[in-house]
């Protein structure tokens, strides 16, 4: 995934081997806490330290920050500590999700045949 899109790894490079169970995209952390599942890739524009906390809490496979949005240094530090890969891309969220979909990553609520 990292090479195929491609994505830049900012933190947690040694934790990139986790199986990806699906994807979730939102910038509202409360919705992510309620909706994302363990092993998901989370696509967001938020670079706030709470992103690392929520990703760790839920056991997400990785966070991808889109549009090269600024990522707080504290986010990267927390991500390293908690073993959460943080990746970035210049792509916007829509385009990245399309790429991930092409690579076979499915949304948590995708129906059969989607």
């Amino acid at each position: 995934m990292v090479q195929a899109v491609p994505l830049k790894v900012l933190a947690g490079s040694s934790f990139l081997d986790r199986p990806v169970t699906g994807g979730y995209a939102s910038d509202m952390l409360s919705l992510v806490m309620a909706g994302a599942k363990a092993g998901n890739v989370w696509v967001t524009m938020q670079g706030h330290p709470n992103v690392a906390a929520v990703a760790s809490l839920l056991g997400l496979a990785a966070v991808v920050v889109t549009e090269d949005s600024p990522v707080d240094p504290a986010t990267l530090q927390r991500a390293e500590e908690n073993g959460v890969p943080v990746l970035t891309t210049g792509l916007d969220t829509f385009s990245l999700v399309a790429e991930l979909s092409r690579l076979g990553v499915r949304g948590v609520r995708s129906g059969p045949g989607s």
Partner: protein
Amino acid sequence: MNPTRPVFADLHLHTVASACAEVEMIPPLIVRRARELGVELLAVTDHHTVENAAAVQEAARPAGIRVLAGMEVQTREEVHVVCYFDDLDQAEQWQEMIWSRLPGLANRPEFFGDQYVVDATGAYVRTNERLLQTSTDLSFEEVFSLAEQWGILAVPAHVDRPRYSLFANLGVLPEGVALPGVEISRNLTPEEALRRFPSLRGLGMLQSGDAHRLEEMTNATLLKLEAPTAQEIRKALLGQGGRSVKILQASGGIAWTGGGEHGRTA
């Protein structure tokens, strides 16, 4: 030590300088409504502008109502934070700084509404043509660190709301910020707020109207202060030196929040 005095307050209020506020949100009508509600301390907290604060202060003076200049700031995570100033010059300097952190676009009144600067009688003075109803490029942490540097009071606004709020947008209380307290919206009790967000326990709470129309103004927050200032409100939130804050619900319930002698015991 000076004696403290109890004062009912509504510390989140929009005027016609906010694109989303109704045209009735002009100084004389705001003051009239505050009098009806027994509110003696107001804060004008328009979106990214303090331009109408002085007009409301002037209109409120004959009624003996004190008005703080304030501003509702939107962080880059789209979290709303209300800021309070004790000095109008400082508020205007803060406004200059904030404007430099906005995208520099023109407002589109047909979409957002107009942003009117008015005088104490509510008469039109000018239109602010800058797009104010959008995010600054400052993070939540940056807003609080600037507020500390400037010596102003900053409080996360309507933390219980499903959007533009600390919990909706950032999920949990950020670790790196020492909050003086929080604001809850007018539609829930402090007990409900604590039930939904247990991490608020121990923090002082303000309940404010976030009024965009007159009927949304509130009188639920009772502060005990030595003087009606932002610095005193900070001390009340922290429960320092006999100052305190409590929220009186219309049903008759009283909720003490924050630290100090009354902290969470009543």
